[in-house]
């Protein structure tokens, strides 16, 4: 549907007025930040686009209370710069999908981060975007402005609507402001790289690491055909799979932890060690998914499963097509590239996942493919009933991002 109208409110009240007007006319509207995510998910069915790009700025930052509030259109880049100036960060390492879906990098808004709940490698230690969200202000599809949660870490006053909005891709409400937990930047960091492990053995190693109290803050595995895209000189030209573990802590503690980690993984070989600087640059690559670069020749899936099933799922799909896999979260998440096809391989991917547990989301594919296959894993009937109920409670006329997650929602 061609876009005929672009709305760009500059203030929360203006956004509310615009949505209220659209609601009174029952006109569907697509919600975007800077458009970084427009090529992911299903295509919203609407000729009006509302961008939160005009809602910018950090509204509260208390470094000593590790909390920040920002208007939803604030670029993640701005937020991370502001935090870094005070020695802090977003612990959940938001993923900037842009470069992997043919959009510019660095165009991600903080609202988009919570709307998709895409978290990076440090999730294994610091939780997801959703886990770090404390409160929101938002406008629902009825044009009502509401708030939920707050700015303190503990809050059980009423239903946890704020966290309930995460991962809803703007289909329930347009967030205008988000409040979230921040964390100190680690004093130092290092990476251990194990090479040549087959996928199943690598998953075994990662699983063993996560059962130790060593607080590994990143645990990923790249089979050979994915590892070639790694940017580190020390990891180039080895022509083998690479399994990476990151430690981040105080400089007084890191050597001891490293030795313990190496001892725990002794049977998997001797790792290549990367210092703090190389670690920073290496793990930044995962945040922009540049190990999964944009290509029209392939489609990209995101699979959530159990670490012990991950290698099996990839190998099952591999029987039907060429794949490039990137295992994150110690195997609990797989980014999977498959050859472009009319259904993006959906039938085989979903079957392989279904029998082993988990769910798959189609991230990158040609728009007509994303329009014709289920992008999000189909829901069980009783969950679908609740999902429709929740959608209707927030947006009874189905105006916000119509069709963005499910064809008829």
């Amino acid at each position, binding site marked *: 549907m061609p876009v005929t109208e672009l709305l760009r409110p500059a203030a929360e009240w203006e956004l*509310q007025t615009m949505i209220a007007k659209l609601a009174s006319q029952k006109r569907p509207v697509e919600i975007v930040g800077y458009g970084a995510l427009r090529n992911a998910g299903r295509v919203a069915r609407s000729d009006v686009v509302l961008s939160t790009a005009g809602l910018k700025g950090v509204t509260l930052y208390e*470094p*000593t*209370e*590790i909390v920040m509030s920002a208007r939803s259109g604030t670029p993640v880049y701005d937020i991370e710069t502001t935090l870094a100036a005070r*020695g802090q960060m977003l612990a959940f390492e938001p993923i900037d999908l842009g470069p992997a879906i043919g959009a510019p990098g660095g165009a991600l808004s903080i609202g988009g981060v919570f709307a998709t709940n895409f978290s990076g490698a440090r999730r294994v230690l610091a*939780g*997801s975007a959703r*886990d770090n969200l404390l409160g929101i202000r938002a406008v629902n599809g009825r*044009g*009502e*402005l*509401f*708030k*939920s949660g*707050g*700015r*303190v*870490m*503990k*809050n*059980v*006053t*009423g*239903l*946890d*609507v704020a966290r*309930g909005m*995460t*991962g*809803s891709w703007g289909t329930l409400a347009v967030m205008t402001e988000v409040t979230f937990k921040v*964390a*100190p930047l680690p004093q130092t960091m290092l990476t251990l790289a194990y090479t040549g492990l087959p996928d199943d053995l690598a998953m075994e190693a990662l*699983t063993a690491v*996560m*059962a130790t*109290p060593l607080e590994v803050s990143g645990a990923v595995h790249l089979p050979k055909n994915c590892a070639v895209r790694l940017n580190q000189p020390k990891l180039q030209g080895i022509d083998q799979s690479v399994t990476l573990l990151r430690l981040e802590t*105080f400089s*007084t*503690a890191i050597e*001891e932890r490293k030795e313990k980690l190496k001892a725990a993984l002794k049977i998997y070989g001797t790792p290549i060690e990367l210092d703090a600087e190389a670690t920073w640059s290496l793990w930044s690559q995962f945040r922009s998914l540049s190990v999964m670069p944009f290509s029209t020749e392939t489609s990209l899936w995101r699979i*959530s499963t*159990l670490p*012990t099933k991950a290698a099996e799922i990839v190998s099952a799909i591999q029987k039907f097509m060429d794949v490039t896999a990137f295992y994150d979260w110690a195997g*609990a*998440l797989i980014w999977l590239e498959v050859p472009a096809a009319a259904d993006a391989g959906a039938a085989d991917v979903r079957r392989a996942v279904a029998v082993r*547990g*988990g*769910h798959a989301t189609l991230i990158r594919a040609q728009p007509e493919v994303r329009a014709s296959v289920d992008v*999000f*894993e189909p829901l069980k009937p*009783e*969950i679908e009933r*609740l*999902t429709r109920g*929740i959608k*209707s*409670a*927030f947006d009874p006329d189905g105006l916000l991002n119509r069709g963005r*997650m499910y064809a008829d929602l």
Partner: protein
Amino acid sequence: MPHIELPEPDVGVLRRRPILVEGLRSRVGADLLILDEDGRRAYETDAFTAYRRVPMIVVLPRTTEEVSKILKYCHENSVKVIPRGAGTSLSGGALPTEDAIVLCISKMNGVIEIDYANRFARVQAGMTNLEITARVAEKGFFYAPDPSSQLACTIAGNLGMNSGGAHCLKYGVTTHNVLGVKMVLIDGTVVDIGGPTLERNGYDLLSLVIGSEGQLGVITEATVKIVPSPEGARPMMIGFRSPEAAGSCVAAIIAAGIIPVAIEYMDRAAIEVCEAFAGAGYPLDVEALLIVEVEGSESEIGVLLGHIAEIAAKYDPKTVVISAGPEQSARIWAGRKAAFGAIGRISDYLCMDGTIPLAQLPHALTRISQICAEHDLKVANIFHAGDGNLHPLVLYDANKPGDADRAELAGEAILKLCVELGGCLTGEHGVGIEKRELMSSQFSPTDLAVQTRIKSVFDPTWRLNPAKVFPLAVTEQMRAGNPPSIPEVA
């Protein structure tokens, strides 16, 4: 004395009691029902003991299928249902009404599956919080949220209240440690929401369920994360001459990039009572005491506590004591954990549970003292300083006419103060009946409407855990199918 209004029972339902008893008996068998008055009286209240109502029938199911049959029957017969775990709610979250059935899942307390490789445990929801840790401890794991009642409280109750604990600064609260639930809806439908994968498919319904205080369904199973136990942990005590100094010290520790696993604050009144009770070795000549705990290996702990002591030195502490070993650590924590019991020995008290931003602590403590003095009452304060959760214990004498009423009024004023200062009404105890009417001081009519509409999706007739969480008038309007009006959009 109590002034929280409890709804009048539905006489029509009470009259149908014999039929309802028979209906339940034929569906789940007589041995699951508690019918005699003495038996039912055991369920008349929870840990918010000022309010009591004997329920019409108590049912103790053993399986999800039985829960489903019971709910379906109650739904078809328009009977209200009170879900209950161990009954340790401090806000009246499990308080019955006389025309309701109490559905208590405490008999459903088994382990279904423990998966160490994928780091989760699937348990029946009546299992106690501490029992989960007991089952996985031998393999070096634990279940992280540690509410004070963890020996008794069930995981179902923890899910209902999104319970926290002393160590949530590092490990988070219940909502950060649960992957999925099996839940029965009011019409008997069994749904699996989330779990055991880290990510959920579709809307994050689990977030809506956790902390919903039994308003959305009855949880019968939970899939929880299990976490590797730290190599070691050790606390230190730092005594200060003023709350300002203690508050500034907490801020400086965090500003230095150290996130301890727990930072507990006690004021002078709390220190004195706990020390007299537990002999924990607390300094008695300070206005504020911090207990700061860090985790890691022996050498890591040593370095971190040393660093914290250096930071504390800038705030002119009167006492700095680093625990010398496990025995002293246990004593230091025993005093803090015994706080509520210790205060209970010297006085009746109302335990409030507001939250405030850390920077507001000195101001909040001053105002709380004023509020209590205005009501002719004393107060002791315990504060989870790392996460802003403040527990003022308002002391009163239940035998003195009017004292309890004044305590409730002072408590209300304190919670409103918390909201004014940027905090909220409840950090971990939940709203229950206790703070129901105060919801309007934190939430606008629209904020509340957003929540009540969600409740209506799960429980369209508003019969699950009635008269709680939302102001009573709102509940009654929703049940009548006549939602409260909300202001027009400007």
